[in-house]
């Protein structure tokens, strides 16, 4: 068979796959729109995302400008609806601005780990043999550390800073994504249509791009979304320990840490940043669960 015929056949296959997946996605959205809890959480996340994106325009005060005479005001103070922090800065403003870093540090490491982990996992699963051994044994080593400990170890050694925290968190999430990617790829690689593609002369790269990735990205993506909530808690945790973000930068974990001293003066103001972390994390978890059900991914 000449290459153009093979290419034509692949194109046909790809179009058929695209049509099939069109119906699949319609089904997914139909199921999602019926799932009230997931839709509600997605709506909450959307509102939060808009609020933190437009924080500089909607926040009532300057996030860095404090005042010694209005420190630690209670919730409901005139002009400061959520009170002020230990340096007299408006809590609402800082929560809005702080969400930017908290979301960034919750999502970016997972996104990076998704790209790196999927690449390595698909390579391991598709090629098998010695390369599989090498990659999987290396992930075993990182599995020997509890995830929190690994994140703290790496960012503790590298020192404080947003970049170091992101490196540490990415390292933490690569091994689990590799495991998931490897196991789904191994499952797909032995299916008949991959053999058929190979028999019709498709190159390994084409097989991976057209036949494997289309089938494995969904489950890996679902798994990665379930990691966002963990990543957010871990990232805020690092800032809470003084790794990660540094003052005066507003970030929810760091705000919790600095407000900890105010717990006896304004306890309900001090716990507010945690409410934000909790809300975001639970919504991401529930949306991830909803997606998993709607896309019918097992495991």
């Amino acid at each position, binding site marked *: 068979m000449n290459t153009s015929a093979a290419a034509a056949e692949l194109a046909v296959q790809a179009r058929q796959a695209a049509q099939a997946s069109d119906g699949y996605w319609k089904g997914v959205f139909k199921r999602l729109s019926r799932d009230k809890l997931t839709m509600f959480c997605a709506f909450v996340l959307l509102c939060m995302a808009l609020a933190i994106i437009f924080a500089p325009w909607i926040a009532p005060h300057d996030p860095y400008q404090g005042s010694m005479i209005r420190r630690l005001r209670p919730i409901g103070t005139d002009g400061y609806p959520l009170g002020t922090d230990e340096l007299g800065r408006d809590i609402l403003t800082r929560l809005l601005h702080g969400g930017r870093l908290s979301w960034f540090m919750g999502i970016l490491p997972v996104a990076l780990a998704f790209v790196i982990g999927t690449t390595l996992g698909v390579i391991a699963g598709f090629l098998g043999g010695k390369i599989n051994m090498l990659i999987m*044994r290396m992930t075993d080593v990182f599995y*020997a550390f509890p995830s929190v400990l690994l994140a703290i170890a790496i960012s503790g*050694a590298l020192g404080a800073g947003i970049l170091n925290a992101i490196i540490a968190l990415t390292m933490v999430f690569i091994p689990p994504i590799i495991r998931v990617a490897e196991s789904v790829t191994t499952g797909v690689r032995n299916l008949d249509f991959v053999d058929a593609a190979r028999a019709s002369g498709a190159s390994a790269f084409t097989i991976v791009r057209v036949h494997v990735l289309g089938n494995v990205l969904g489950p890996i993506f679902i798994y990665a979304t379930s990691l966002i909530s963990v990543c957010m808690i871990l990232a805020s*945790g690092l800032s809470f320990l003084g790794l990660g973000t540094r003052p005066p930068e507003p970030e929810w*974990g760091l705000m919790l840490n600095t407000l*900890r001293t105010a717990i006896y003066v304004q306890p*309900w103001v001090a716990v507010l940043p945690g409410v934000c972390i*909790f809300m975001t*994390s639970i919504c991401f978890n529930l949306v991830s669960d909803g997606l998993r059900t709607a896309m019918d991914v097992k495991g």
Partner: protein
Amino acid sequence: MFFYLIRRLIYAVPIALAVGFVCFMLVQIAPGDPINAIVPPDAPQEVVEQVRRDYGLDKPLPIQFGLWLLKVVQGDLGRSLATGRPVWSDLHSAIGNTLTLAFAASLIGFVLGCILGGLAGTFRGSILDRVAVTTAVAGVSVPHYWLGMVLVVIFSVQLNWLPAMGAGPGGSADWAWDWEHMQHLILPAVTLSVIPMGIVTRTVRGIVAEIMNQEFVVALRGKGLTSWNVFVHVVKNAAPNALAVIGLQLGYLMGGSILVETVFSWPGTGLLLNSAIFQRDLPVLQGTILVLAMFFVALNLFVDLVQTALDPRIKRS
């Protein structure tokens, strides 16, 4: 079983070595010369050179790793930069406190998780199921260091029922099994227990629901067994997996308790790590991480073996 035991033990050796290597590399990836992790920054140049030779830091990396490993297996984890004391002397009292806390938290999490998960799995789709699932999601989503602060606000600041700090009266670091000390344990243990509670609930719910759907349960019912007797059979089938999950959670808690220990000033490995990070005391950081990770490796091994021994269906090849 015997051969499986031997093979599993042999398999743990390269993992333990690799974990050691990662811990060794922690000091290497730290910015600056690794020598700064051993001598104080104000030491004279001759001393620095002397120490560099003594520690073999002028040798290639693999040899350095070998030398370091040799010291570690002899129990020498180096000296703290901040206090000058051997790392191990600070570490071993801290490990006891962390174990107490992690064990108490796992116990609470396991009992609550089994009850919630068992009920949810048995009465699937009921209100009870919904409550259990919601609690489980909340448990794994909550930033536990924040939960610790909230509990302190409620039970220490507002109600004044329980102490907020330390492991014993007067901030003592030594643990004893009496009410004075137990009071200090309650809040941190409850705080730390929400994560295993959530995970155990999810797992047990899944396992129980799956078992309830199997034919042998229908057969048992058809045979005329009371629901209590059926329940015993379900427990027998669910126990090995549930125990494996909680066993691993104990390990995660030992590593993950650092944030909760910071909130409650609990004198364990977490507080030690926290001050090591704060003072950039790399030997303490490295030693603590190494010991905790090794504990986790051993625990993994133990859980695997116990699970195999408990569940005759698992035949490892």
